[in-house]
């Protein structure tokens, strides 16, 4: 089961992962990553994620297809928020079901690296002094490069 969604409203990862796992009887393992808007010390009050309708969801669907083929997945759930998010709200949830843990864990790692710095999203943070656009960190680009053929 391939379930790729772009959501404009807050979501509860748990409400998606339960049914997703249940949809794959016979699986060996499910790996899930949930990213949330970090709060606390960094002074972030809110996050805005914008996207480009004609590219963003099709790009996520293509990424999901590639991950499914590359890691031999039984199923993949990929959900990404857009709009204004408050601290503590989930931004992204990727869950991969496979016969063995290796494929499930690697698929989540692969999808997150690509969603972070190779998917059509633009992120800005509101701090006390206003909005600031965020670019991927150098380590995000390095993480992405791991998946390229040598």
């Amino acid at each position, binding site marked *: 089961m391939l379930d790729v969604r772009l959501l404009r409203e807050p979501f509860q990862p748990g409400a998606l992962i339960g049914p997703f796992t249940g949809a794959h009887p016979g699986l060996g393992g499910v790996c899930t990553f949930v990213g949330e808007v970090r709060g606390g010390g960094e002074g972030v009050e809110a996050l805005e994620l914008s996207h480009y309708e004609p*590219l963003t969801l*099709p790009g996520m669907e293509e990424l999901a297809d590639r991950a499914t083929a590359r890691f031999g997945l039984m199923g993949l759930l990929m959900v990404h928020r857009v709009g204004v998010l408050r601290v503590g709200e989930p931004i992204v949830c990727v869950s991969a079901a496979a016969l063995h843990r290796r494929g499930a864990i690697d698929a989540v790692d692969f999808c997150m690296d690509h969603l972070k710095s190779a998917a059509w*999203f633009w*992120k800005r943070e509101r701090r006390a002094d206003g909005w600031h656009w965020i*670019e991927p960190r150098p380590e995000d680009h390095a993480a992405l490069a791991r998946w390229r053929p040598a």
Partner: protein
Amino acid sequence: MTVRIVFLGPLRDIGGEVEREASAPLDWEGLLAAVGEPVASHLQDARVRVACAGRVLADKTALFAQEGDEVALLPPVSGG
């Protein structure tokens, strides 16, 4: 005025607009002229991509937008 130019992410702030229209057909030079400075300078950055009619161009300087096409200006992304 039949090509729509869409500004994404930080280019929205840099250009001070979300979208604008330009005459068809629109090529690379026409695009640079239509968006003006400082956006035109940013478009020279290799990390800024351009999509036309829903497809990202492998070579943005080969842009040739037809009547009704949407041209998207895509700065470096940051998701997740």
